């Protein structure tokens, strides 16, 4: 047995042993509610997930239709509180072991991968929070490795399995963060200081010398139960160049999200923009925008979901492996910008449950169209792929141990 499979199975067995006691403590998974009610004692929620799937990308890079299997979104999540004043959010992500070459996902881009989604870092989240209150004002300080206060929830906690293309426009994750959050009534505000550099591989840790060189801020309004509207801004220093000499990013994200009281209907509308900025000349040089709408509804025991997305991405020189771009790039230039339009439909069948295990069979079908935004750009989809129209077919099984966690990307009092 290869070492990483041994590790995966060992961790799953460990979690299985812990799970009955854990769920005896608390069957629910709404962390916000738990934090509001708890005044003493400790709570711990654990969840494990893995999704074996098969994807057919028709075509993929270099015009070749590929069919590949992957074990994606393999992770262990822990959410813990101690009294009313301390909490911890931890996620171990095992994609670095289970999908080293990435997950076939046409249009995806980030961290040196293109048309494949990159594996996340093993230490995806480890954030400790201290919480307090003064009158109607509640506040918290969260420190560790995790999400900056920016944008929307991580796609792993959303209904569709395939990541949207806008992942790197709409979330800032796996950074060394220090977040101050305040909440009064229906309003929340957060500010995060973090390191701008993105991970360069599953084992990456935040670069110590870069801690605090970037910041983000997010304001959230909760107009009624289950609904939220957020707006975020961020200034990220040289995310793709560890030395700090790369282009900076100025990011904006706004979204509206609503979930029905019975948790059976969900909708998210999002717009995001990232501008690359040449710090030396103090000039914005490239701009990428995204608009996304997704929703889901449960009918009987099945879940139907739909996502519409239009996202622009930079096209960069590719390595000998057409699914990789040089990391870091060999200079600051790009080969053009493509606009991707994606319709993704998802169906999850009623789950199969045994003890604390659940299995959710699903299929997803995505149609993508890509076009160059600049008429003179050297990169055109047709040159690389032989077409500008694509299909992706995915079938798999979302395996879960324990109750699902609703949210990912917020901490302490900033969890709606």
């Amino acid at each position, binding site marked *: 047995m290869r070492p990483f499979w041994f590790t995966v199975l060992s961790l799953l067995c460990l979690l299985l042993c812990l799970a009955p006691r854990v769920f005896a403590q608390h069957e629910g998974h709404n962390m916000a509610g738990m934090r509001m009610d708890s005044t003493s004692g400790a709570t711990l929620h654990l969840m494990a997930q893995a999704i074996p799937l098969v994807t057919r990308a028709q075509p993929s890079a270099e015009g070749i239709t590929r069919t590949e299997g992957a074990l994606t979104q393999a992770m262990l999540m822990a959410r813990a509180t101690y009294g009313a004043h301390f909490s911890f959010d931890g996620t171990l992500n095992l994609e670095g072991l289970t999908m080293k070459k990435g997950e076939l996902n046409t249009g995806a881009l980030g961290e040196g991968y293109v048309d494949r989604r990159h594996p996340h870092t093993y230490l995806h989240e480890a954030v400790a929070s201290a919480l307090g209150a003064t009158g109607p004002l509640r506040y918290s300080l969260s420190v560790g490795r995790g999400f900056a206060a920016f944008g929307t929830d991580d796609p792993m906690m959303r209904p569709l399995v395939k990541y949207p293309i806008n992942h790197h426009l709409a979330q800032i994750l796996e950074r060394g963060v220090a977040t101050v959050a305040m909440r009064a009534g229906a309003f929340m505000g957060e500010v995060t200081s973090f390191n701008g550099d993105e991970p360069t591989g599953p084992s990456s840790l935040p670069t110590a010398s870069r801690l605090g060189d970037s910041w983000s801020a997010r304001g959230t309004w909760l107009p009624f139960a289950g609904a939220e509207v957020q707006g975020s801004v961020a200034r990220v220093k040289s995310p793709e160049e560890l030395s700090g000499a790369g282009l900076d990013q100025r990011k904006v994200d706004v979204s509206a999200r609503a979930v029905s009281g019975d948790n059976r209907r969900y909708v998210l509308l999002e717009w995001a923009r990232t501008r690359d900025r040449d710090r030396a000349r103090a000039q*914005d040089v490239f701009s990428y925008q995204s608009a996304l709408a997704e929703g889901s509804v449960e009918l009987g025991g099945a879940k139907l979901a739909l996502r519409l997305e239009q996202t622009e991405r930079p096209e960069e020189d590719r390595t000998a492996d057409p699914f990789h771009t040089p990391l870091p790039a060999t200079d600051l230039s790009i080969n053009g910008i493509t*606009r991707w339009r994606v319709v993704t439909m998802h169906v999850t069948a009623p789950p199969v449950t045994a003890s604390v295990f659940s299995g959710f069979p699903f299929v997803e079908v995505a149609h993508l169209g890509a076009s160059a935004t600049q008429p003179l750009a050297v990169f055109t989809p047709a040159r690389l792929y032989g077409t500008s129209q694509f299909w992706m077919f995915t079938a798999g099984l979302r395996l879960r141990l324990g109750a699902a966690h609703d949210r990912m990307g917020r901490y302490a009092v900033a969890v709606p």
Partner: protein
Amino acid sequence: MRQRSVLFIAVGLIACAGSEPTGSGPPVTSSNPVTMTVLGRGDFKPLTATNGRYTGEISVRGTTGYTTTWSNSSAAQGEFFIWDVSGNVPALVDSVHIDQARTLGDIAVSDDGSLLIVATEQGNGSIVIYSLANPRKPVLVSRFSSNSTILGVHTAEIGRVNGKLYGFLSIDPGSGVTSQLVIVDLSNPANPTQVFQQFIGTPYVHDTFVRDGILFLGLWNDGVAIWDIGGGTLGGTPSAPKEIGRLKTINGEVHNIWWLKDPVTGNKKYAFIGEEGPGSIGTSAVGDIHVVDVSNMAAPKEVGFYTVSGAGTHNFSVDEANGILYAAYYNGGVRALDVRGDLGGCVDVQKGLLANSLVQLCDLRKMGRELGIGLVGQGNQAYIWGVQYQGGSVYASDMINGIWKLTAVSRP
């Protein structure tokens, strides 16, 4: 297609999700330069929306030219092309395949015309060495790669130090690996030997220039460094260079260098530094030419500049006998500058500011030193990677359109 568009419009999001690059700037303009005469264009395969190749660097010797191809559609598609440039229209005569490299970025002919060196990247980083016993039929001699070069050889300059031929390789950075300078002894081209390696540059070492035992390095945001490798007084050698001086030029992003040695005036005072800012290949580019006074190499000083609004510079070639620098200027075509004489002594009205800088420097355009512009405003949108002056002509490699032959400009 229409149905899909309507669907997206219906959700009310698409209309606000478009954008254009913000760096394209106003149209390229200049003062009173002549328009360089285009003699002809050689194109191996027109670039279309669905096919074709991008041209990289150019090297010309005698009546033969060599051009590389960049960002090929697969690593099995690396090729360079051989041209007959004796006529006005360069004629393709052959091509040579190089495996395991998506990009062949740099190409150079040795000073004696005996060797051709091709750099490979986005694949197996290496230099490939050919014999030019027959310039139109290069014969493979060896391919050199090492643990140091495997990340990709971005540029490979060749130069002679105390009679021995060396290659100066700028190596791409990798994940968690800084860029490197590698020096290779080419005196036995069948068995190249690595004699020096150093991690250097923030974040890149992008190019080098060697002359008279002095090595200039383009270190991006670390500026330009000057090393003694045998021609200075510090006792440096190619295997043990000694740094003489260093300068962080305004706005950094130092890409390439040309140290001018004027055979008429004997002036060796100036080095020209190419700054390569962020561009969108085929569409936009950013970056100026910086003039650096290196008369005291231990304390080089920036004294002048040349800028083109909405375009950025790339590689240089200098007609030293006539004191004219030709700069590939990407979407700004080819620029010819008078670089003879005093470039750092100008009156106040001839001074100007570089972007995001408050330091007044001599502006070569205001000094009337902009002599010629080529390949701008013609039918084909050009995007010029490299230039080479030779024998009264200027050859330009155009990433989109192949190669051009232009008439060189004359001194006023």
